[in-house]
């Protein structure tokens, strides 16, 4: 029924207009809010999943760069030594003392949970209740739990061997990433760990979410109470260098201003002592990342896993030494020594073939990978290869000659073996499966490899295993089989494994409703963009059919038709349009530009990389984790970063900036304040 639009009744007219205006105004606002939310989450997701992983390479190369440019005469020497000087070589007794919580008093005003040891089920329950109520555990108890955990982990083997009898289930939990609600939901749906309910937590407990520490404390609590039923695998985020970047370090320091540093130091040790894999009933291998063609579980079982505190740095990184008497101490008790470097051969982070071969990896193979989303355009990929070649550790070691060498007497000369072992761990924690046969380096993540179905068969066959369960990658439904159902990726938690049928297992998922749907949307969009990118030449061809005059633009309607014609996915393109096309003017889309924008990693990278790198580097400089750095440290860091990134920035600009950041004028800079204002600096230097 049409609107009564009678000219001689002004009131109706006015109402109609007013009605329209209100609805339009509200609608536009609503759309804008949605758009903003989409844009934000999309960007964040993208940058984390893509640029972040690639940026790991850049950070890694920055370390290499720092070491390359260290010279004894340069004033930067002290700074770099300071950065890389590791913990003093500590005996276990020293660590016991360090762990000591006894001097820490719990004040009467503390209203969080009190724990008694040895840990009991009651204690862990209390802990969970408290965390639900957003309480914080007192540092004394944190240190106590960590101490007990460390003592337990030290006696565990590198590979947990678990026997699950016929009637029992075992629950395997994927990446938690600091999301406490998820862990609690899993416990709610699946039940708490107990003698009847074994669990395997498959790594990546920390970073990104804001309750990483709470998750750790709960997991460690259960580990202490049920050491035979609860199994923890190390993930690639159980690594203090990764934590610097992805938020765990920040979380701990924020929550524990006095004891945070100590807690972090202890966690470094604990992470290095986490087992690397779990094998269930001699049939199922559970590991965080995956395998490679060189995976040798016997070697993995034999090694000293705690040597490898961070897999981002190879075991015998050359350490510049102060006064030559810190024995170039590597990570903690790791031996090091440039003498070793002179003897050593290639040590690169990824599983590589000979350098020549590496450069011949066809772009196509990376792009067809379902995982890791390698939307690399030409220049980024070339740059990666070039950097890999330039800063690959083999050359770094050969070039650095100016270092004192004093090998650590306790561990003897580092050997070839350590390099192999390290690579085993990197592959276990960082690799992703791919559909094609073979094994190539994982350029997207910057570590580990992509392994194919033939490698799965070979490695599982060699060790008489039936199934590989891993996490490390986000999957739309929370889980995904590949490689002829020989590899199962679990991302959301809670798959359970049941022994009994002929096939020996059955896995099914429980829901993490809300987060799963969120992840699904993002994953779906990512997968969609990948598809679009993979088909880009077909798409351009289809678009051009609608553009006979070669104007470069087509209508949105034609865009939708063409896209559907190429992809044949039966999707509602109209509705998805806002999430796929950023700019459409007057109902027309510049399709060439759109295609270009699909390979957006450059832009996303630029958007976030400087932020994160800078913060990470700052946190590294701030070795005592005080949250403050001196002007001089600030200045040197900035200079290093800008030369690494080939940015021009004058000394005066740095000094001015430093001074403006020092709000209380005490000669030191608060890192957090600086990061907030970072954008303003960028504006003025580009003006």
């Amino acid at each position, binding site marked *: 029924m049409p609107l009564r639009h009678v000219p001689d009744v002004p009131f109706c007219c006015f109402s109609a207009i007013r009605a*329209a205006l209100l609805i339009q105004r509200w609608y536009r606002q609503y759309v*804008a809010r949605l758009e903003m939310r989409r844009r934000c989450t999309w960007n964040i997701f993208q940058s984390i999943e893509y640029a972040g992983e690639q940026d790991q390479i850049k950070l890694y190369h920055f370390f290499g760069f720092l070491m390359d440019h260290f010279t004894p005469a340069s004033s930067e020497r002290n700074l770099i030594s300071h950065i890389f000087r590791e913990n003093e070589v500590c005996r276990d007794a020293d660590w016991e003392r360090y762990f000591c919580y006894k001097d820490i008093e719990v004040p009467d005003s503390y209203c969080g949970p009190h724990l008694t040891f040895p840990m009991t089920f009651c204690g862990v329950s209390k802990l969970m209740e408290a965390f639900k109520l957003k309480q914080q555990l007192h540092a004394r108890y944190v240190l106590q739990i960590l101490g007990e955990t460390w003592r337990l982990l030290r006696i565990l083997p590198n590979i947990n061997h678990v026997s699950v009898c016929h009637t029992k289930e075992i629950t395997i939990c994927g990446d938690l990433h600091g999301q406490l609600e998820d862990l609690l939901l899993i416990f709610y749906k699946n039940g708490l760990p107990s003698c009847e309910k074994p669990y395997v937590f498959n790594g990546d407990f920390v970073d990104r979410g804001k309750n990483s520490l709470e998750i750790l404390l709960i997991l460690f609590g259960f580990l202490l109470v049920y050491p035979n039923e609860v199994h923890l695998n190390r993930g690639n985020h159980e690594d203090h260098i990764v934590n610097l970047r992805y938020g765990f370090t920040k979380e701990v320091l924020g929550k524990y201003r006095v004891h945070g540093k100590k807690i972090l130091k202890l966690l470094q040790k604990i992470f290095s002592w986490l087992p690397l894999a779990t094998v269930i009933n001699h049939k199922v291998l559970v590991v965080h990342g995956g395998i490679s063609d060189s995976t040798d579980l016997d070697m993995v079982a034999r090694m000293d896993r705690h040597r490898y505190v961070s897999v981002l740095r190879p075991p015998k990184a050359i350490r510049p030494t102060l006064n030559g008497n810190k024995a170039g101490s590597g990570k903690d008790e790791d031996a090091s020594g440039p003498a070793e470097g002179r003897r050593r051969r290639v040590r690169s982070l990824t599983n590589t073939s000979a350098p020549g071969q590496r450069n011949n990896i066809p772009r196509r193979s990376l792009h067809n990978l379902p995982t890791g989303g390698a939307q690399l355009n030409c220049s980024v990929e070339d740059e990666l290869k070039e950097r890999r070649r330039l800063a690959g550790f083999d050359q770094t070691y050969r070039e650095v000659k100016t270092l004192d060498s004093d090998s650590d007497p306790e561990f003897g000369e580092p050997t070839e073996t350590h390099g192999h072992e390290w690579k085993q761990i990197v592959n276990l924690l960082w690799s992703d499966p791919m559909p094609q046969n073979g094994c190539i380096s994982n350029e997207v993540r910057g570590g580990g490899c992509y392994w194919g179905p033939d490698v799965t068969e070979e490695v599982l066959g060699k060790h008489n295993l039936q199934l590989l369960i891993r996490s490390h990658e986000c999957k739309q439904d929370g889980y995904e089989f590949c490689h002829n159902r020989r590899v199962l990726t679990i991302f959301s938690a809670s798959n359970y494994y049941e022994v009994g049928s002929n096939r020996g297992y059955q896995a099914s998922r429980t829901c993490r409703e809300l987060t799963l749907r969120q992840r699904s949307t993002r994953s779906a969009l990512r997968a969609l963009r990948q598809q679009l990118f993979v088909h880009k030449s077909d798409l351009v061809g289809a678009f051009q059919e609608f553009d006979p005059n070669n104007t470069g633009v087509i209508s949105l309607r034609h865009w939708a038709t063409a896209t559907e014609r190429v992809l044949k996915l039966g999707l509602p393109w109209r509705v998805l349009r806002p999430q796929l096309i950023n700019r459409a003017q007057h109902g027309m889309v510049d399709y060439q530009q759109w295609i270009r924008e699909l390979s957006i990693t450059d832009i996303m990278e630029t958007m976030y990389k400087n932020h994160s790198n800078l913060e990470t580097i700052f946190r590294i400089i701030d070795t005592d984790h005080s949250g403050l750095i001196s002007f001089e440290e600030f200045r040197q860091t900035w200079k290093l970063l800008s030369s690494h990134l080939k940015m021009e920035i004058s000394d005066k600009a740095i000094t001015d900036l430093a001074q403006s950041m020092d709000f209380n004028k005490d000669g030191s800079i608060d890192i957090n304040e600086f990061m907030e204002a970072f954008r303003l600096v960028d504006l003025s230097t580009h003006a």
Partner: protein
Amino acid sequence: ALFVSENENILAIHRKITAAFEPFDYESKNMVDVREIGTIMYSLDCFPTQLDIREFIAEVRGVFMFTLFIHKLTNHDYVNEKLLATPSQLTCLPQMYENEQKGFLKPEELTKLMMEEGEPFTQEEMDEMLTVHTNRKENVIYYDKLINKLTADAPK
């Protein structure tokens, strides 16, 4: 203009605007395409008219500098009080339609209203609204459902 309480200082406003600006600043150059201005302003809980937006854009060419953005937003009131309806007011609107008792509108009716009155929708906006909010089975738009959605997480 911006929905900030009295307690929020200039730094907080700064951060709010920055956060709204950032997702559209694709190359991190503190610049956004002018075509995004409307969206950014709306998402900051401003209710500019289309004329406001056009005027805003007319003052710059091509890309929009962040500092100018902040300056304008904090110095200009982009809410026309008379037209800022509360959700309850919006629900009174259907009364002028014959179908009021049934609580719905046909797509043609809504289209006519949105595209001929007030600050008319573009065809694209109309298509979008219809696609998302039309009840498929009955091919009508239920008014209160629409209003609920639009005002669900509105400011204040």
